[in-house]
């Protein structure tokens, strides 16, 4: 395999860029680092640790299940272990490990110097870590979650699980969604706005399609999990009745909300792994991926179809045949894009000249397991057959082929492929081959017999089983296979540690791969690229080898060496639109994540004072974070190019604006799921809905007008500053603050006038939750307005320098639009019958 020379700057330029971009030495420097490469490696290492912990839990369970009538573990211990195993692997390993790859690789793949929001990136990592530690602290008190990874009610309600177990689960998952949501926003904005000039949509490295699709899926699916977990927590600790059928609640509401999130999550942990394979395969087949556009669009199609199949997890719940058939059909259609990807991989191998190195072995294993897991998925998608498979070990086999086969094998291929880039050293090929075969054989020996155990009727989640039912032999095989597989994972770790210290030097491009990350030295310098490259094809490092290929520029282009700068480009065609000044390292992300952790413990312990203290701390830290200390007041990250007339013309949406729009999108989904819950409970109510008749409109109608008026005053303020009228901005923000406060006050008065409290029945619970969530958003909006108002008083804004004002205006309009939906649904709807 040929090694190409890296693109190196002059020593003077290297030193200058290094001084600007390098993290300060020492503990504080390390804790405050916002370098995407550091964060990516931390993600990878932490997720691998969670993999080991989750694997150890599985190993103990497999000892228990190796024979019938074994009592190594008590039923309660077993319940906690299988729940924590599932929760750990699905939430704290499978998705975060992919975030690790993406964090490390994205700026390198797209020719940028960092992610769009580096501090948010650090915050995403710290919240991921602390949420995991939070959930694992449950073991300290002997009350780990014990209701399975999907925590079905009513088993998980306080009546049947009175301890803290499921509180750790509900709070911990909402904590994690914070990490995943900000991470997803960061990925999307990065891919839209930070690509190298010329990297138009059709030239994106194929890996980015997987993570981008997964990030969009996360934004629209995670709010469903948040709503479900908030409801579970409120039912358990505040006495609400969302899932309590005796008071008008519906246990199946949990299943709907969980699986509306849960099935897209499967693709969130699968699509980026598929992307790894699509990205790495060409390097070992010595040719570009066959059917790039087909694979990219198959990825997008899969991500969207993933939202339309959630009911196939609920085929055994008594849903009517025709509604089930819609979801069965969608579950079968999803095989089309999956097959497109498989055939593209096969065609790439077929038409290429495969070089059989360890990454390719893992990719081949991945494809085989992908097909097996896919076929067993088709079986469960068939509603009639699924009636026989539900809650058996067949489903356990299927999900492990999907989650381990696709995720772990894809991830391991990625580790072998990019380890040289991350460390500058090659992994041992000999150990790698042993690693592959032990893992591959162990996996199939362990998990394939689970299909048979399931078909023989063995239910999942039994802590032991009677001998003599024909399950013993298959279970013994499974246990042996699981331990062999675990040995393979240990070989991987040994190889990682050994090669980190003693691997052969890798050079910049040991695989002779075609994409930008291989143009820089291994490991990459802190600034990534000495000059921002210009791209003219999907394979910048293979240009010139292929007939008719256009040549990009890797060695000349903008240096941007005056400050911590990178280029901003347009979303579709990657034309230069601006230069971004990136933020410095900071301890604020760590401190804010710690404050969120304290808040979570406050909620767990139901300590109002602790929760309030954490809330105040979070508010202070967030304000400090967003306050432009020591920088130009507005546009601290941006507009340098525009001010110096290097770029002219109308500026498209900035990264900050995109971030706000994506936040609004995910928050909008949250309210969508809340309103879905309202209508679902109403549709299945046995009595009148609302139980006390339609709500009184005397207060809410004028209050709605007050809120709408506040949108008008905010729009007036924002249009004022666009014209440079700072006085109008201040007056408009002041009026908006006043109207918003009046709205909240009147809502409080309305609450006091209601004849029922939130714990009266399911209607009351959903009424107060929906309006309360909205009220909380108004309160957050008021805080944002207060901060922007203060900055307006200090003269931070002017015509052309008012991005924060515009973003807060959008948020305020969003809050108003949501209220219109709430008003129409909860107040007007019942009057209209």
């Amino acid at each position, binding site marked *: 395999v040929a090694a190409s020379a890296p693109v190196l700057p002059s020593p003077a330029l290297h030193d200058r860029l290094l001084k600007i971009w390098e993290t300060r030495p020492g503990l504080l420097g390390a804790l405050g680092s916002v370098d995407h490469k550091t964060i990516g490696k931390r993600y990878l290492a932490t997720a691998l640790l969670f993999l080991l912990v989750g694997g150890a839990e599985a190993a103990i369970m497999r000892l228990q299940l190796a024979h019938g009538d074994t009592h190594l573990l008590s039923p309660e211990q077993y319940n906690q272990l299988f729940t924590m195993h599932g929760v750990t692997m699905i939430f704290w390993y499978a998705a975060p490990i992919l975030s690790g790859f993406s964090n490390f690789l994205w700026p390198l793949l797209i020719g940028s110097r960092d992610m769009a929001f580096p501090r948010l990136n650090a915050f995403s990592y710290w919240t991921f870590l602390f949420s995991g530690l939070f959930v694992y602290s449950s073991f300290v008190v002997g009350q780990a979650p014990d209701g399975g990874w999907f925590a079905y009610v009513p088993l998980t309600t306080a009546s049947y699980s009175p301890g803290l177990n499921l509180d750790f689960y509900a709070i911990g998952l909402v904590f994690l969604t914070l990490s995943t949501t900000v991470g997803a926003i960061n990925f999307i904005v990065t891919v839209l706005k930070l690509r190298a000039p010329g990297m138009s949509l059709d030239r994106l490295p194929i890996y980015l399609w997987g993570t981008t699709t997964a990030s969009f899926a996360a934004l629209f699916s995670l709010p469903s999990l948040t709503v479900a977990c908030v409801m579970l927590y409120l039912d358990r600790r505040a006495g609400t009745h969302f899932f309590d059928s005796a008071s008008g609640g519906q246990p199946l509401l949990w299943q709907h909300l969980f699986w509306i999130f849960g099935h897209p999550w499967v693709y969130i942990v699968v699509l980026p792994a598929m992307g790894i394979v699509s990205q790495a395969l060409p390097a070992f087949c010595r040719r570009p991926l066959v059917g790039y556009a087909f694979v990219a669009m198959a990825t997008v199609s899969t991500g969207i179809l993933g939202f339309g199949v959630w009911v196939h997890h609920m085929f055994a719940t008594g849903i009517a045949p025709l509604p089930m058939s819609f979801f069965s059909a*969608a579950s079968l259609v999803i095989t089309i894009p999956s097959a497109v990807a498989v055939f593209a991989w096969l065609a790439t191998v077929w038409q290429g000249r495969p070089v059989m190195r360890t990454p390719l072995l893992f990719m081949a294993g991945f494809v085989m397991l992908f097909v097996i897991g896919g076929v067993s998925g088709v079986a469960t998608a068939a509603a009639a057959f699924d009636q026989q498979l539900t809650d058996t070990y067949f489903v356990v086999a299927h999900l492990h082929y999907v989650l381990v086969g696709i995720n772990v094998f894809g991830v391991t291929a990625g580790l072998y492929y990019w380890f040289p880039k991350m460390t500058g050293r090659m992994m041992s090929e000999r150990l790698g081959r042993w690693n592959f075969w032990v893992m591959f054989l162990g996996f199939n020996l362990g998990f394939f017999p689970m299909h048979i155990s399931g078909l023989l009727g063995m239910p999942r989640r039994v802590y032991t089983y009677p001998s003599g039912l024909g399950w013993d032999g298959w279970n013994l095989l499974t246990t042996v296979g699981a331990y062999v597989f675990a040995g393979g994972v240990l070989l991987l770790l040994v190889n990682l540690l050994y090669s980190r210290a003693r691997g052969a030097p890798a050079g910049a491009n040991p695989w002779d791969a075609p994409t930008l990350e291989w143009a820089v030295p291994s490991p990459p310098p802190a600034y990534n690229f000495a000059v921002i490259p210009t791209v003219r094809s999907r394979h910048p490092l293979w240009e010139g080898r292929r007939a008719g290929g256009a040549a*990009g520029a890797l060695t000349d282009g903008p240096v941007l060496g005056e400050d911590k700068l990178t280029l901003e480009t347009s979303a579709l065609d990657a034309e230069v639109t601006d230069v971004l000044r990136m933020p410095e390292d900071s301890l604020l992300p760590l401190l804010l994540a710690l404050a969120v952790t304290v808040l979570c413990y406050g909620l767990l312990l139901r300590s109002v004072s602790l929760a309030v203290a954490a809330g105040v701390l979070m508010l202070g830290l967030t304000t400090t974070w967003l306050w432009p200390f020591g920088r130009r007041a507005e546009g601290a990250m941006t507009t340098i190019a525009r001010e110096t007339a290097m770029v002219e013309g109308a500026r498209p949406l900035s990264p900050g604006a995109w971030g706000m729009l994506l936040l609004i999108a995910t928050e909008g989904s949250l309210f969508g799921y809340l309103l879905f819950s309202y209508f679902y409970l109403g549709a299945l109510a046995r009595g009148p809905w609302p139980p006390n008749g339609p709500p009184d409109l005397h207060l809410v109608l004028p209050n709605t007008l007050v809120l709408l008026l506040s949108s008008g005053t905010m729009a007036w303020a924002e249009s004022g500053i666009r014209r440079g009228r700072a006085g109008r901005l201040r007056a408009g923000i002041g009026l908006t603050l006043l109207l918003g406060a009046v709205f909240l006050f009147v809502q409080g008065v309305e609450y006091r006038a209601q004849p029922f409290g939130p714990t009266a029945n399911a209607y009351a619970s959903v009424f107060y939750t929906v309006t309360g969530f909205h009220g909380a958003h108004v309160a957050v909006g008021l805080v944002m307005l207060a901060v922007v108002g203060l900055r307006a008083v200090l003269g931070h804004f002017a015509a052309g320098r008012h991005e924060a004002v515009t973003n807060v205006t959008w948020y305020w309009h969003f809050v108003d639009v949501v209220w219109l939906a709430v008003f129409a649904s909860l107040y007007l709807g019942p009057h209209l019958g």
Partner: protein
Amino acid sequence: MSSVLRPDGAGRAPPQAGDARLWFGLFGACAAWSLQELLSYGLVARGCLDLAGSVAAAHRGATAVSAGLVLVGVIALLAAVTALRRVDRGRAAFMALGGVVVSGTFVVGLLANFVVLFLAPACG
């Protein structure tokens, strides 16, 4: 400096006439499929609960909505095919081809959802 930030015009794509068609070709069918799935499910499920009139009325409503959305999906696919014929390379061609792939997949989904209306018993 200007030439440094826009080296040799790289990355500049000619203005794309008909971008709206490209976007419709790309996402029109999947939007139609999403609506079809949610509306058909909602109508029939409510019909089975006898909350929206008779089951037969709900079935008729779902069939009409479904048929309309199949049509939207097919039009999106045709829009993508037409766009593909008009552009030969670059980002526009990629989006057009992507539209054919995505809309083609979702038209299959739309047809599958439409066909099951006549194959499966509504409420069992």
